[in-house]
């Protein structure tokens, strides 16, 4: 143990009663965990994908969203978005095999994101209905900066991968080694640093567009 750590632990030992045993700590923690579910905001009723889309477009999150039938429809959705926002048909495409396999004809694509990127298209690992958050795990197929550098970020997410509450997402990965970055993205970048006034596009994207992939259709 290095000296600083030793000194800190000695000070803790002096200030606190004798440490509890590991099983006693674990037992206390289990009791605390049992209380979590009752404290969650009781709003996730209905299919998680629908609640998620509602939250994403709620005033607090303020992203735009649409639903498409299958991932094959994503390039067309991107072209529609670009036309609507008057953007060049030139995108940074997250290097995910499922995205790269799509037919992007009519659009210029590159597999990296530039410092002043205008439009990037990505695929999230999933979403959280409670908060309307997209979940990204960093990997060679999901570089972190795709969610931070572009001015407009379009993100596809499968309707099957929506967890109702934040804890449900965590439990789905408990025990697995943590990715380098878990990024929970809830709406476009914003700041209230000048007089508490909300302005979008502070450093990260100014626009976030969520494309849900898959049912329901009617």
């Amino acid at each position, binding site marked *: 143990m290095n000296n600083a750590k030793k000194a800190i*632990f000695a000070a803790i030992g002096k200030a606190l009663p004798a440490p509890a045993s590991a099983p006693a700590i674990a037992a206390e923690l289990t009791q605390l965990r049992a209380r979590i579910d009752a404290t969650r905001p009781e709003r996730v009723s209905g299919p998680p994908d629908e609640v998620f889309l509602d939250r994403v477009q709620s005033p607090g999150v303020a992203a735009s969203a649409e639903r498409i039938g299958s991932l094959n429809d994503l390039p067309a959705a991107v072209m529609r978005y670009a036309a609507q926002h008057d953007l060049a048909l030139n995108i940074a495409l997250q290097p995910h095999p499922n995205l790269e396999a799509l037919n992007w004809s009519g659009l210029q694509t590159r597999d990296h994101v530039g*410092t002043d990127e205008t439009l990037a298209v990505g695929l999230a690992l999933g979403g959280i209905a409670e908060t309307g958050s997209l979940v990204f795990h960093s990997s060679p197929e999901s570089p*972190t900066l795709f969610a*931070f550098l572009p001015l407009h970020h379009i993100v596809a997410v499968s309707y099957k991968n929506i967890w109702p509450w934040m804890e449900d997402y*965590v439990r789905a990965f408990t025990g697995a080694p943590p990715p380098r970055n878990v990024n929970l*993205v809830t709406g476009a970048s914003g700041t209230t640093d000048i007089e508490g006034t909300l302005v979008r596009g502070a450093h*990260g994207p100014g626009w976030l567009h969520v494309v849900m992939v898959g049912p329901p259709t009617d």
Partner: protein
Amino acid sequence: MNAFHGRVTAALADATLKIAIDRTTNTARAKRAAAIAAWPEFAQARVLGRDIKDHVIANMEYYLNQFETNAKKTGAKIHWARTGQEACEIVVGICKAANAKTVTRSKSMLGEEIGLPHALEAAGIERVETDLAEHIIQLAHEKPSHIIWPALHKTREQVGDLFRANHTDPGALETVEQMVNSARRNLREKFMAADVGISGANFLIADTGAICTVTNEGNAELTTTPPRVHIVTAGIEKLVPSMVEAMTMLRLLVRSATGAELTQYTTFHAGPKRTGDVDGPEEFHIVLVDAGRTTMLAEGLAEMLRCLRCGACMNHCVVYRQIGGHAYGATYPGPMGSVITPSLDGLEKSQDLPRACTLNGQCQEVCPVAIPLPKLIRGWRTKAWVQGYEPVYTAWALRIWEFLALRPALYQIASNMALRVMPVFAKGGWIAKMPLAGGWTRYRDMPRPQAATFLAQYKKRQAAK
């Protein structure tokens, strides 16, 4: 007049400051109230949040060891620092070993507390603050005046002037939007060019060894991802057992701070770049800092170590809203600062802070982890009294009061006299000026007293029955 009174007098005389404080804290209070109203389970969650933090603090050694073991597994390098100075030396040492010319920094109150900005400057390393508010105060050569909105004391007009003087091609700076865009353009290249990125940590996740940052701007990830080296400085009290508990704490923290349900960017960082990653730092260092935390534990301030640094207590503090953050003369202003600062800087130097409080209890009521701030503030007042730090006039006034209070007849004569004298200075129902009461009446009026004392009125009413 001592230094604290001087700063308070200056703040109270600054009309622009009052406008700036009101603009942000009024919005913050309204948004928090709406977020809490929309979460009926808040009261229960708050008690749970308190219990989770108490559990971790009571078992700090256990969780620190667990965090260290797991963080090392992710490839993070762990450093321990007893003091702020030790922490700064470690950070500067890592920067020098990396041959760093510029570092980007994402807002961290611990960094401010230990004097990291100054240490980097002293080492000749260019520091770029990336949080918009920190960027503003860096340009103004000032210190933060609030823990969530460090530039809360600046009006938009003042920010416009600063950007006009310091930004390249700022363009028009009439609206807040134009100001934010100018900062975005000016900081862009700096994010990508930095050698080292420094962040704090809102939570240390014991069972994975990850650290959590929360921002609304996205500046934390732009600070920590492009540079070769990411350094985290974190207080040892920031632990939570796992990501599950972190979620409970996040619900409490974000609603209390900004009224949102979750920050736009909530990121869990675990170690350096992995094989095949196209971005991310090559080195990942975590500096675990004591800097007075274990002293607080020993001084009976363990409850204060629950603090999530949400800022709600200052937004709701009647004193903070009059004088702003700089008047406190410390890193942490408002109620939480009045508890922490005497422990960090010594009571003799900061004895005025616990006295700058009306003990109205609002801070405790809004605190998301139920810290009994008024009780802890009273504790410092008692210590100041016992250690003889009370100002002479207060000590004398209390002694005179004690003398009278023990002699009811004399006490009645004295209060009757006061009641006769005070109305002479009243205009309408209020006293705006009175000899010996200038300290009170300079910034507020005193109500004109009743015609007779309570006891006299009581006797009269009893007699009439």
